[in-house]
C-alpha cells in the first residue's frame, strides 16, 4: 500500500509542473492578446501564406468585428 504515497506524490509533482506552466503563460502575457497570434500563425516566417490569398482575405473582415 505504501506505493500509493509514492504515486500520489508523483502525480502531484506532475500537476504542480502544469501549474507552473500556467503561471509562466500568464506572466508572459499570453492571455492578454488572444487575437493577434491567431492571425500571425497563418503567415510563415518567410512571409508565405499557405493556401494563397484566401486566409488573408478572411482576416480583413476580422478587423471589423473583433472589439474584445
Amino acid at each position: 500500500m505504501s506505493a500509493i504515497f509514492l504515486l500520489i506524490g508523483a502525480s502531484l509533482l506532475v500537476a504542480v509542473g502544469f501549474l507552473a506552466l500556467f503561471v509562466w503563460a500568464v506572466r508572459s502575457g499570453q492571455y492578454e492578446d488572444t487575437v493577434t497570434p491567431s492571425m500571425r500563425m497563418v503567415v510563415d516566417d518567410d512571409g508565405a501564406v499557405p493556401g494563397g490569398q484566401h486566409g488573408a482575405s478572411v482576416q480583413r473582415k476580422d478587423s471589423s468585428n473583433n472589439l474584445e
Partner: protein
Amino acid sequence: MNRFEDAEGGETLEGTTIAGVEASPELSCAHCGDPCRESDPKLGEKYFCCHGCLTVYRMLTEHKLGNYYQLNAQPGLSLRQHSGSEKFEFLDDPETARRLLDFSDGKLARVQLYVPQVYCSSCIWLLENLYRLQPAVLESKVDFVKKEIAISFREDKLTLRELVELLASLGYTPSLTLDTTEKKPDRRIGRRLLLQTGLAGFAFANIMLLSFPDYLDTVGAIGSEFTRFFGVVSLVLATPVFLYSAADFFKTAWGSLRRRQMHLDVPISLGIIALFARSIYDIVTATGTGFLDSMSGLVFFLLIGRIIQTRTYRALSFDRDYKSYFPLYVTRVSGDTTQQVAATNVTVGDRIAVRNGELVVADAILISSEASIDYSFVSGEAEPVRRKSGDLVYAGGRVSGDRVELEVVKDVSQSYLVSLWNSQQFKRERESKASQLAESVARYFTAGVLLLAAITFAAWFPQGLNSALLTATAVLIVACPCALALTIPFTYGTAMQVMGARELYLRNQGVVEGLAKADTIVFDKTGTLTVGGSGGVEFEGEALTARERHLIKSLALQSIHPMSRQIVEMLDHATASIPQGVTENPGRGILGRVANVEVKIGSREWIGTEPGNAADAAPESGGEAWVTFDGVIRGRFVMRSQVRPDVGQSLSTMRNTHSLWLLSGDGDREKARFTDYFEDDKLIFRQSPQQKLDFMDRLRSGGKRLIMLGDGLNDAGALAASDVGIAVSDRVASFTPASDAILAGESLWRMPAFIGLSKRAIKIVVAGFIISFVYNFVGLYFAVTGQLSPLLAAILMPLSSVTVVGFAVAATRLAAKREGLI
C-alpha cells in the same frame, strides 16, 4: 466598407477605388492599389501612384520582404496623402522621449505606440519584421485588437524619432496625442485574477481527487493513515487558495464593513473562513477530511464569475477626453522659420500652422484666406464648415484641405472646449455603478444567516460546546451565497455579450441595471437621431444617364471628400474609368477629363452658378455639390441630414414607456420633423454644452432616471450627468467621448430591444436568486439538524453553482431571442 476602419488611414478610399476601377486593373499601384496613370512612377513592369509607394516597395523588396505583397493584393497604405508631411523633430527632445518610452537604460529602450492604420495580417507581418529593415530594432510585437505595436530597440543606434519616421515612411504613422505620455493602465491586475483562478482550479481538482477514496469508502476499507495523509496533502493544497486566491474577497468584505456597508463579499468571506477553519479542525483532530474541496471549488467558481464581470471591450475606450485627440506638438511659425513646440506651451499671439487632417489645439483666428474646418469631433456634424480670414476657429476643429496658419487667441487650457471639459461639473466622479440589487440582497441575507447560525448554536448548546460550534459553522458554510454571487455576472455578462453582437457596447455590467431602471430618455439631434450623409445624397435635376453616371463616378472616385464618397456610394452600379488631368481644389471641388468630357464637381462658387432660383437655394443642412459637363451645369447632389432609418418606429415604441426629450444645439428649423415623436414642450433647441449639462441636472434632481444618447464632445457633459450616458458613433472604434456605453449609429433603432432585454435580465437575476435560495434552504436543513457531511457539501455547492449559471445564461439568451436580438 464599414465604419470600423479608421478614416485617418487611406483604406476606406482604397477599398472603394479597387471596386471601382475594374475596367483597367493593370494601372493600379503595386503597393497600395490606388489607380495610376501612365505618367506615374514606374519600376520594371509595376506602376506606382506616388514616389512614397515606390520607395516603400523598393525598400521592402531589397530587404527580401517582398512577400508582403503576396499576403494581400496591394496591402500597402496609400502614401499619396501624407508622404513626407509628418515632422517628428519634437521626438528629439529628451523630456518627450522619456515620457513616451516605457523603459530605457541608455542602450535598450522599449516603446508602445498606437498605430490606427493596422488593418490586416499583412500589416502585422510587416511590422513584426521591422528588424529586417532596421537592425537596431530587436523585437516588435503587434496587438491587433488594440492596434498597438510594442518595439524594443537599441537606443544607442536608433533614436525614437528615427524609429517613428521609419514607421511613418511605411505608412504606419503612430498617433501621438496628449494622453500618449500619460500613465498606461496596469496589466498586472488582470494577470493576478487569472493566476488566482488558475491556482484555485488546480487545488479544487486535486483535492477532489484525493477526497474520492474517502467519499466512496462506505465500509471503512482504507486505513486511518491514508485519511490522515490525504487530509494533510489537501490542507497543503488549499492553504494558498485561502491566502492568495480568496484574498480579494476578504479585502472587499473588510473594506465594506469599515464603511458600514454590506457587500455580498461579506457572507462569502464568512463562508470561506468557516470552511477553512472547520476543515483545519477536522483534519487536525482526525475527525474527518474537511471541506477543502468545497472551499477550493467555491473560490474557483466565484473567481470565474469575477472574470466574467470584469470582461470588457479591449478595443474600446470609455474614458476618452480631449487629450486622446489633441496632438502632442504643434508647428509654430515665426517669420520664415517653423518650430515644433509642445501643444500645452502654445501661448496667446503665437502663429501656428495646421496641415490637412490635423486638429487646431487652441481657439485661434484664421490668418490664411480660407479654410475648411471639420467639427465632427466636437459637435458630431459631418460636414466641414468654411471659415474666412479673420474668423474664429474653435479648438478641436480639424483642418481639411490646404495647410493654414492661425493666430492663437486663447491658451490651450482656456480654450472653449478644454475649459468646459476641465470645469468641475464635467469632472464629476462617475458614481460607482455596482449592482444595487446585489447590495440590498446582501444586507438581508447576511443578517438572516448570522441570525440562523446564532439560533442553531443556541439550540445545540445543551449537547455540548463542540457540537454547537460544528453545527453553527455548518450553517455558515452551506449558506455561503456562491450561487447568488454568480447569478449577476452570468446574467448581465450574457446580456452584455448579446448587446455587443448588436453593437451596443456597455462599459460594465452595472450599466444593464441603469438601462432597465431609466424612465426618461434624452436624445441629441445631429449625429444621433439624424445623420448627415448615409444614404442621404440625392441628385437634383434631370435623371442621369448611364454615361453621365460613368463620368461622375470616375471623377468622384479620385477624391476623399465625404461628399465624393457619398456620390460614389450612390452610383454604386455605375462603371468607372481613370480620368485624365485630375485637379482637386481642396474645399471647393474636383476637375478632370473623363472620356474627353471635362467634368467638374464642386461648390456653387467654384462652379459659378447664379443663385436666386428657388430650387437652387442652399439646402437646409448638409452640403451640396454641383456638376458641370464641359462647362454646362447639369444639376447638383444634395446631402441631407436624415433621421436614421427605423428610428422613428422605435421612438414611437419608447414613447409609451418613457418620457422622451430632444436636446439639440442647433436652431429649431427641423423641429417639424420631430413633433410626431416628441411632445412639443420636450423639444429643446439652441442648447450650449453647459446648458445641456444643467438641463440634465435639473431633470435628475427631479427624481428622473436618465438615459442620454449623444455624440461629440459637446454632449460630453450631458453624458456624464446622466445615469447612463450612451455615445452614439458611426465609427465605434474611433471617436467617442467618455460614456457608459458606445452604440453604433445604425443600431440606434434597437434601443427598445436593448432596454427590454435589460428589464428581463433583472427578472432573471431575481429568479436566479430564488433558485440559489432553494439550494441554500435544502443545505440549511441538513446543517441545522447536524447532518452536513463533506460529501453532501461537495455535491450541493458545485451543483447549485452550475444550475444557477446554466439558468442565467439560457434564460438570458431566450430573453434576447424574444427581444429579437439573436
